[in-house]
């Protein structure tokens, strides 16, 4: 148990954060696309994510919650080191979260202001999250290399979220807005691809420990499917975006699905790179773990509630399945 429980919790934390990226990623992406749309389209875009964003955001609370529950020793160190980006991210999430309601409830003359807040909050939160991920992967160092690396991910993650957001809009919109969304997707997918490529190259360069894990025989061969399948998913995206007709015929979901696939592969790669460290070069998951009794107590709750949560999350997505034209915040 002492060996396996921290591993189970690390997997659960990774899974929560992956689900967070996949789900809140699309609604942050939609937020960043807002300035490109006209007023009526903005309403539809916000409405398309309205029923979901709050629950989506809860996954990051769960992710950080698991860090706190299972690895209290690391929780404090990680969040203390990331104090500034966390604060900036929180301010972004706050602005954007309240903008959902305030853009339509604060009065017509303030709508433009809250639309801007919605955009700005989404952008700032996404970039801050990227920065945090970069800082985390480099072991919370603050030398030039790791700052550059953090900056690179701070640009890449928003591009990924933009693509997820476009993927969401391909499923949820129709008519002119759909056509626009296809155009946006074409523009966001290349920066995302370039960013992910650069991150993949840079990661082993900034961390010897990670380089060793990847480029030793036979690990390299066993791990080869991760980059290969990522490339395949990216190729599928490019192929889809070259065929407007298939999107109009209802294949738009493939953009979202392929981007999700890339996220899954990236997180598998990341998980492999980190394991068994909770903070690279400082602390393993076993060093940081909470007491056995606390881990067991919470595991009971996780085992009972997580399937239920996943169940009603699917239920909610089914209820709001289809185009979002007839939904709205007002």
């Amino acid at each position: 148990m002492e060996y396996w429980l921290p591993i189970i919790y690390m997997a659960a934390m990774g899974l929560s954060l992956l689900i967070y990226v996949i789900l809140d990623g699309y609604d942050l992406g939609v937020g960043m696309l807002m300035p490109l749309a006209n007023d009526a389209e903005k309403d539809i875009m916000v409405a398309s994510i309205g029923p979901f964003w709050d629950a989506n955001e809860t996954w990051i609370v769960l992710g950080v919650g698991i860090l706190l529950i299972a690895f209290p020793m690391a929780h404090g160190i990680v969040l203390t080191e990331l104090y500034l980006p966390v604060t900036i991210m929180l301010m972004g999430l706050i602005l954007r979260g309240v903008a959902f309601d305030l853009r339509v409830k604060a009065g017509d003359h303030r709508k433009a202001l809250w639309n801007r807040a919605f955009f700005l909050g989404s952008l700032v939160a996404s970039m801050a999250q990227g920065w945090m991920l970069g800082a985390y992967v480099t072991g919370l160092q603050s030398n030039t290399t790791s700052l550059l690396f953090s900056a690179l991910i701070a640009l890449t993650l928003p591009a990924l979220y933009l693509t997820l957001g476009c993927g969401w809009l391909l499923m949820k919109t129709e008519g002119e807005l759909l056509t626009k969304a296809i155009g946006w997707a074409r523009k966001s997918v290349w920066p995302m691809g370039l960013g992910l490529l650069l991150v993949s190259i840079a990661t082993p360069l900034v961390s010897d420990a990670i380089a060793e894990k990847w480029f030793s025989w036979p690990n390299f061969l066993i791990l080869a499917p991760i980059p290969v399948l990522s490339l395949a998913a990216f190729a599928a995206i490019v192929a889809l975006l070259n065929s407007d007709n298939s999107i109009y015929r209802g294949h738009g979901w493939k953009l979202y699905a392929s981007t999700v696939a890339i996220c899954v592969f990236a997180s598998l790669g990341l998980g492999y790179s980190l394991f068994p460290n909770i903070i690279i070069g400082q602390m393993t998951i076993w060093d940081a773990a909470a007491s056995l009794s606390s881990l067991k107590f919470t595991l009971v709750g996780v085992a009972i509630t997580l399937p239920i949560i996943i169940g009603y999350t699917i239920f909610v997505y089914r209820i709001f399945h289809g185009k979002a034209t007839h939904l709205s915040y007002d």
Partner: protein
Amino acid sequence: MDIDPLVLARIQFATNISFHILFPAISIGLGWLLLFFRVRYTQTGDKAWEYAYYFWVKIFALTFAMGVVSGITMSFQFGTNWPGFMEKAGNVAGPLLGYEVLSAFFLEASFLGIMLFGKDRVSNRMHLISTFLVAFGTTLSAFWILSLNSWMQTPTGYYLEDGVVMVESWWEVIFNPSFPYRFFHMVIASVLTSAFLVAGVSAWRALKNVDGPATWKIMRTGVMVAAVLAPLQIFIGDLHGLNTLEHQPAKVAAMEAIWETEEGAPFTVVALPDEESRSNKFALEIPYAASLVLTHELKGEVKGLNEFVGEHPPVAIVFWSFRVMLAIGGLMVLVAWWAAWALRSGRQASKPVLAALSAMTFSGWVAVLAGWYVTEIGRQPWIVDGVLKVQDVVADHSAATVSGTLFGYILLYLFLLASYIGALRNLSAKPAASLILNPAGTASANTGDNTAKGGES
């Protein structure tokens, strides 16, 4: 200027948690009021209840969003500001917060989507269930977080191993001695806060003639709930105080500004507690009253602050916060009963009653904040009473970093608070009928409300 980073970290945390609590203080109670409106509408088909639901669900959605985003801030700040707390007490705090996320946060967030947007997509029954689950989720969330807070005040069910808290009995941790009192005190505070908000906004709408008979019906609901709960709250508060006297005598001594242990201690109505001279300057006292209230005996012994030199909370702020809470509580009973009398058997209240109700719109906020200041500042210098001190768990950020972000938070929160009240004012000026949308998706009445693409929220 040299400011202690510990003081700054505390001010920052206090700022965040003060801002945050404003919104759950409304949404926990308002969730249940909404369920009541929703059920009454289903039962009676009375338009007034439908209006009540649709008007207040908009305010609920806004309030809920404010609570969510400021709550996410809290979940991160435990780590960014108080890393030592998680290192030393994480074995208790972690699982309790975890259960809150797992059992409550996802529940309320997910079913809120159905509640706000799903009216035309699910059956009436499913929509009712969703409304219930949202109210239930907010209360469940209060259950876990108040359990943790209470454990920090009255820790039980644990032992220490190398300075780290280990759990002996989860039952004793969760149902620690102050938990039942704090839980009921807070849940009732929330229902009272939302009842005065509902009554106050309705009174304002009635004064301005914004809306028809529905407003009076909604106002009556708020007033009647307040008239019953305001006195009940005083009763529960008294029980809570007795519990505090038993477990945290230093807090009670600060609340009453009692310096020396006394039998037959007087109740100090107002005073200027002075920590330098360790005495009260200018005190207006009622003989024996503190002993009577606290021990229910005329000659009962009340411990004084001098028994806890160096380990008691700052006196003046706890003393005054407590008096603010008491004053608002008393005012709530008076106004609620006055309004209930004025509104009895279908009467319409006069202008002074309406003005009084609308002046009390945000009274719950003041009382809730004051009450939390009493209990939280009253716990100082401990973060976990008798186990862990605040100064030992603070993160070592520079004063510049913390004051910079603190300044940012304060600006943001002031702006958001103004926006929230502005939005409330904006919505209150509109007739409820104009806020209801028909299934086709456009506003059913011509009000100039900007609802280009309808639906509901």
